[in-house]
């Protein structure tokens, strides 16, 4: 099994099925084309997206449906093309697409999830994009109450 240098867990083995391919990279990280999903029971519903090439780059993410069970995707035609999916209809979260929101966690502030630009992974082929919406229907900083915030004394 191949080994991966990670930001939080040292070196660990991974399955090739857990590698997601981002042909366009991610905004601000345009050259990072390959991320590995690290899914640990102890930290669910959170997951990690660890860069396959940069050990110091790891995102923490959460399935969008955990934040908003009614969440509706709006993936552009260009992004559907990157995912190698047919344009014309929106793919289904769960059966066709893994949809994750990246979390921003800062000391002393409630965690926020970027629902404006979910990570969309085609479950058939592991092609992935950050599917930026342009309708501003969902916030890029949706508060995630209770996460990563110390209890008040």
């Amino acid at each position, binding site marked *: 099994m191949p080994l991966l240098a990670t930001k939080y867990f040292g070196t660990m083995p991974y399955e090739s099925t857990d590698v997601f391919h981002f042909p366009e990279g991610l905004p*601000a990280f345009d050259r990072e084309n390959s991320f590995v999903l690290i899914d640990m029971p102890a930290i669910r519903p959170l997951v990690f997206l660890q860069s396959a090439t940069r050990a110091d780059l790891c995102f923490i993410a959460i399935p969008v449906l955990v934040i908003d069970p009614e969440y509706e995707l709006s993936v552009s035609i260009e992004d559907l093309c990157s995912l190698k999916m047919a344009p014309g209809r929106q793919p289904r979260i769960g059966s066709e697409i893994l949809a994750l929101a990246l979390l921003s966690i800062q000391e002393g502030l409630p965690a926020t999830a970027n629902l404006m630009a979910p990570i969309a992974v085609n479950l058939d082929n592991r092609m992935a994009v950050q599917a930026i919406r342009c309708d501003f229907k969902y916030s890029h900083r949706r508060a995630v109450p*209770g996460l990563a915030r110390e209890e008040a004394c």
Partner: protein
Amino acid sequence: MLVLRRRAGESLLIGDQIEIEFLEVSSQAVKIGIKAPKQVSILRKELHLTQSENRAAAREVDLERLKNSLENFHISSSFPQVSR
């Protein structure tokens, strides 16, 4: 916010170096052309927001504290299968 009404083919100036021309207007979208000096960054707003959120999301996180907070975190009943 300054609000102006313009028609297709018209344009406006921002300062003396930036010109925005309204090329096509429909009920759903406008197509604009922008003339600006090379050093002026022009980005779709949602892309700019995503870049700055991604930089924030890439920061180091205290995992132990995060794990502890998960105990109190309300998990939606519709938690989906994450992979496979």
